[in-house]
């Protein structure tokens, strides 16, 4: 039974799922060899497979993830970074500088201060210790321009779309560059403020209506209308 205008069927914590539904722990658990949903999720059919996608979840870091972090505070030789997960991440200064840290000449506060955003890779995480970040890699480091849009981590795949359909449409229509990080932060860089404002509204629209049918077309229409109205 498919609800009106939805991509599939909404299931709720405790609902018994079809045994064909493929989902991973903890989004799907097995009780007495029956599959049970634990989150508010959407079950939909994709190429003769039943898939389950949570509508709201909590971001869990994994080694290798590229995340956008918000510097919260500064330690002796590291920054404490909020990566929108239950665990605060650590970024060491040696990693940031790419050389040993010299307390006499290096000032952490001048490199990055609380409130700055940083694009980084999760080096290690296993729930027993807090995640460690690294900025050694192409395109990683402190974010100096552009804007960050905070959305639900569960909605990031929707911002990208099937075979990048959504993100390439957004980039094409606005001329902005977009980087959706898995932890629910979307980094955007636009030619001007008007386009930036339109794109932020479009991303919020995706966040709100991710589970509805025909979203890509609706977002495209929204951007066209906004550009017309604002004359950009």
């Amino acid at each position, binding site marked *: 039974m498919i609800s009106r205008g939805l991509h599939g069927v909404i299931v709720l914590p*405790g609902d018994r799922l079809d045994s064909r539904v493929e989902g991973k722990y903890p989004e799907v658990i097995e009780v007495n060899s029956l599959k049970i949903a634990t989150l508010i999720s959407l079950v939909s059919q994709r190429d003769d497979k039943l898939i389950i996608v949570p509508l709201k979840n909590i971001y869990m870091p994994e080694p290798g993830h590229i995340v956008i972090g918000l510097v919260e505070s500064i330690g002796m030789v590291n920054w404490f970074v909020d990566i929108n997960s*239950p665990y605060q991440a650590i970024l060491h200064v040696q990693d940031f500088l790419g050389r040993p840290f010299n307390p006499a000449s290096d000032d952490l506060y001048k490199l990055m201060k609380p409130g700055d955003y940083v694009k980084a890779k999760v080096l290690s995480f296993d729930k*027993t210790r807090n995640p460690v970040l690294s900025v050694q890699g192409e395109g990683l480091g402190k974010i100096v321009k552009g804007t960050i849009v905070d959305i639900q981590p569960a909605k990031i795949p929707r911002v990208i779309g099937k075979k990048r359909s959504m993100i390439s449409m957004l980039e094409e229509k606005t001329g902005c560059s977009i980087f959706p990080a898995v932890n629910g932060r979307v980094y955007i860089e636009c030619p001007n403020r008007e386009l930036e404002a339109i794109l932020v509204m479009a991303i919020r629209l995706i966040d709100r209506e991710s589970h509805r049918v025909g979203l890509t077309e609706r977002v495209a229409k929204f951007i066209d209308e906004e550009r017309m109205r604002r004359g950009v």
Partner: protein
Amino acid sequence: MQGKKSMRLIDERGLRHDGRRPDEIRPIRMQVGVLANASGSALVEYGKTKVLAAVYGPREPQQKFMILPDKAILRVRYHMAPFSTTERKSPAPSRREIELSKVIREALEDVVLTSEYPRTVIDIFIEVLQADGGTRVAGITASSLALADAGIPMKALVAGVAVGKVDGVLVLDVDEVEDSSGEADMPIAAAPDLNLITLFQINGVLTEEEVERGLSMALKAIQYIVSLEKSTLKQKYEAIGEEV
């Protein structure tokens, strides 16, 4: 227990003082996502009882001594607002509120997958805005909704209801009048999807047969309340399409 004999709680037609049948619950209203700052929130009304629940986390606590290495801890604060009762209630946590916080926590711990988030806390704040009996069970219902709204994995949704005994008759979903002048009060919370009772208290005197009958009355009502919870949560996502 000495009931006030001045007021009849069951009339000659077998109806209660507010016109309900003995096995009838009060009208229930639910709303989710009522607070923007919380990870999840819910407002639940059982008749004139009005309870707000807010969930924060999982997050690392300020006081690290309390964390557990293998699971998240649930911190529940049940609190009655000073204006929730007819006579002003002191806002300081009373003995009763501390105890209810504990039993509500235990009623929810069974369904939340706390082992997914070791070394963190999940904060649940339950604020009674208007008290008219059954605040702890309404608090459990509200917390369960708020946890689901926050995206915290749960094995099932929980709901609660209180059964009482007034004028020798078992009644469902007792209100303040029935609670204070009745002979017994039995708050129950359960997760029907798991066939699990998570809260079972009795205050007063009931026979074995009455406990059994009251329990089955409560479980039937809880099943209905959980179905209401589910439709409330579904509505939040289904309503989005209708407004565009």
